[in-house]
């Protein structure tokens, strides 16, 4: 079946089996391997992408269900030159070690801070509780997201 959607601001069209989930479609059909698969049953959050402005688990969406939507992945939150404020904060606080859960953390944090730039510590932790990390123990990730809030409070969003 054909699925047409916006990926990081560009229109894409893919022919996929209905059973293919969006994560596999992004990784295998569209060459965007930044979105990772840590469980494929909707628990770990490594596959989080932003669909129509909302953070979602891309292993729990069929690619064909993304028809007509706007999808943003971790690649779409990057530029080729300087790190974004969110990325800078992650690096500064050592909020990543192996890097496998990181794309899901970044997309989730970006979606949260875009809507709630004043999210407090409890809110940030609560939202990130849907993303598993085995390396960092989460504390530096929470610190990084809290620091990045300042950039999202400005009128020009990153």
């Amino acid at each position, binding site marked *: 079946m054909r699925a047409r959607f916006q990926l990081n601001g560009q229109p894409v069209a893919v022919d996929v089996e*209905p*059973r293919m989930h969006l994560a596999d479609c992004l990784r295998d059909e569209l060459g965007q391997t930044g979105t990772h698969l840590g469980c*494929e049953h*909707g628990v770990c959050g490594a596959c989080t992408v932003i669909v129509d402005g*909302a953070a979602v688990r891309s292993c*729990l969406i*069929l690619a064909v*269900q993304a028809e007509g939507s706007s999808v943003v992945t971790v690649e779409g939150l990057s530029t080729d030159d300087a790190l974004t404020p969110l990325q800078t904060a992650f690096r500064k606080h050592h909020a990543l070690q192996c890097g496998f859960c990181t794309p899901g953390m970044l997309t989730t944090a970006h979606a949260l801070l875009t809507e709630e730039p004043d999210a407090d510590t409890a809110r940030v932790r609560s939202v990130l*509780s*849907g993303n598993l990390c085995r390396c960092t123990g989460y504390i530096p990730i929470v610190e990084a997201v809290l620091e990045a809030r300042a950039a999202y409070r400005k009128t020009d969003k990153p």
Partner: protein
Amino acid sequence: MKPVPFEYHAPATLREAVELLASDPDAMVIAGGQSLIPLLALRLATPSLLVDLRRVPGLHAIAVGDGGVRLGPRVRWRDIEDHGPLEIAHPLLQEAIAHVAHYQIRNRGTVGGSLAHADPAAELPGVAVTCEAEITLVGVAGSRTIRAGEFFTGPLTTVRQRDEIITELYLPFWPRDRHWAFLKFAQRQGDFALAGIALFYDEDQDGRVRNAHIGVIGACDRPRRLTEVETVLNGRPVDEVLIREAVEIAARTVDPPEDLHAPAAYRRALVATLVQRGLRRATQPRSV
């Protein structure tokens, strides 16, 4: 884990959706997919056809009025969280939904999906049973409305026929001065409840309980009301003596399963604790 192969349709009307379901004994309906897709991934569900409701109009409305609250099947958890009027129109619903899973799941998971999936530890089925909600289904034979208490028949089982689609959840009107509480205990935030309690009661002019409703999730084969506890509460003012009695009856009458995560005795005690804390919470004034 990849699902078995299946066909997929996203029909434009409800009628088409129903006909597609009726046409194939192995067809399944999909809305948010947050409960279904993990089953597909684990190959616990092996449909031949998925019927997606995403193009069918009119299924995601939230209507709040003097008659109560009506939710369409595609209403998502975040829609409930974001819907301002629900804070007064049904605070118990909003509070319960805040406990569902995680941020990303709440952006996709739906009312209809949760009711149809019928996990005994899920929040919405618990609220539905506690509040004597009504569930409307549409199938080839037409439409019917079932009381929540009769809709859920066991773990992951309901009276819904395989050609039927849930089209509405109706919650009766919620008076503003109602006393209520929702408490859930899970090992980690967002996990399914080891046990949870939804309760409400009204007070008559002498401060005595009227219309008590207590529902339990996670500690039974399906959401159930603790009717014996309700009986003992009705007609009396809520004080520590009454709470102690209520707790003792709750512990006695709940019949929890024994499973991987908790022995029955623990769940029983947990229900008792939550009933106690829930009743205490319900007596406290609320800001709205």
